């Protein structure tokens, strides 16, 4: 029998309770922070900061609660691939919608 991955039989190592508690407290603090920052008027920075905090919280959940930090590189590649595809969906869509008004009406490269 091939014994790849035998250095961690059964998959993962047991994560100490302290790590989980620390992540949990950080996630709760980030939730309060999101709520607090939303009450201050920062113009278009409100949404940027809210999404940055959400992205940070997501990274913590994915890496520690979902154990991607301990997963093998194939699983990590799949996880990263999923986010790359999501970014393609969002960026390409917004690229279209936000740039539609940029061309003067007469010079649209397609029939009006």
């Amino acid at each position, binding site marked *: *029998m*091939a*014994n*790849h*991955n*035998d250095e*961690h*039989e*059964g*998959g*993962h190592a*047991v*994560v100490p*309770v302290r790590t*989980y*508690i620390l*992540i*949990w407290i950080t*996630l*709760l603090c980030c*939730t*309060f922070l*999101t*709520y607090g920052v*939303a*009450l*201050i*008027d*920062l113009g278009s920075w*409100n*949404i940027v900061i*809210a*999404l940055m*905090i*959400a992205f940070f*919280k*997501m990274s913590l*959940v*994915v890496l*520690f*609660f*979902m*154990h991607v930090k301990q*997963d*093998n590189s*194939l*699983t990590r590649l*799949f*996880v990263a*691939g*999923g*986010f790359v*595809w*999501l970014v393609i*969906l*969002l960026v390409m*869509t*917004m690229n279209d*919608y*936000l740039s539609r008004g940029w061309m003067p009406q007469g010079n649209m490269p397609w029939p009006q």
Partner: protein
Amino acid sequence: MPEFADVNPGQVTEHAHSPFLRHHFEDMAQQFDSSTLGMWVFLLTEIMFFGGMFGAYTVYRSMYPDAFASTSKHMIPLLGATNTAVLICSSLTMAFAVRWAHIGSRSVVRVMLILTMIFGIAFICVKFTEYYLHYKDHLVPWLNFQYPEHPALAHNAEILFCFYFFMTGFHALHMFVGLGLLTYLLIKNEKIVFGPDYYSPVEIIGLYWHFVDIVWIFLFPLLYLIGAHG
């Protein structure tokens, strides 16, 4: 008893097989990695499922920023934040359930699964209270939508409430599915003892539960806090 125990007396093996090893895997580590990878592939389809809604939301929010911001006074950010905290707590207890399933302690797994379910049910109760408040405020599209304070923005504000009910509704549906899966784990935990070489059902249902938590982490700022400072 496992459904597909690998009983093959003719085969020479280096060490005794776990009764939970399916015959098409070489060892428990490979079986665990395959289960995890398979679950992640399913979660990627879920990312794209919710991603479509997030994409459409982004397009409409960029088209009608004023109408979307005007809805924030009908949202209750405190309830949304409470629900975020409740889900984060449920993720912690779910992670603990996985941890002690890995160690092999049936009683701790039982307590953690029940706590996770209690947090999940609390989330759904708060969510449906909000739905009831929106119904009373005449904010349900197609049913009783009225927006007298901004007649000019009413139509586009209705679009936001469509997103709100679809996105939180699909999220709530995932919560119900998650509660069903946790019930399955609770029963399975009484029938077999999870341990270091077999706890993948707890691990992959945990992955699902954390994914649903992540969806809410993004829904909360996007739906509740659009114009909270206004």
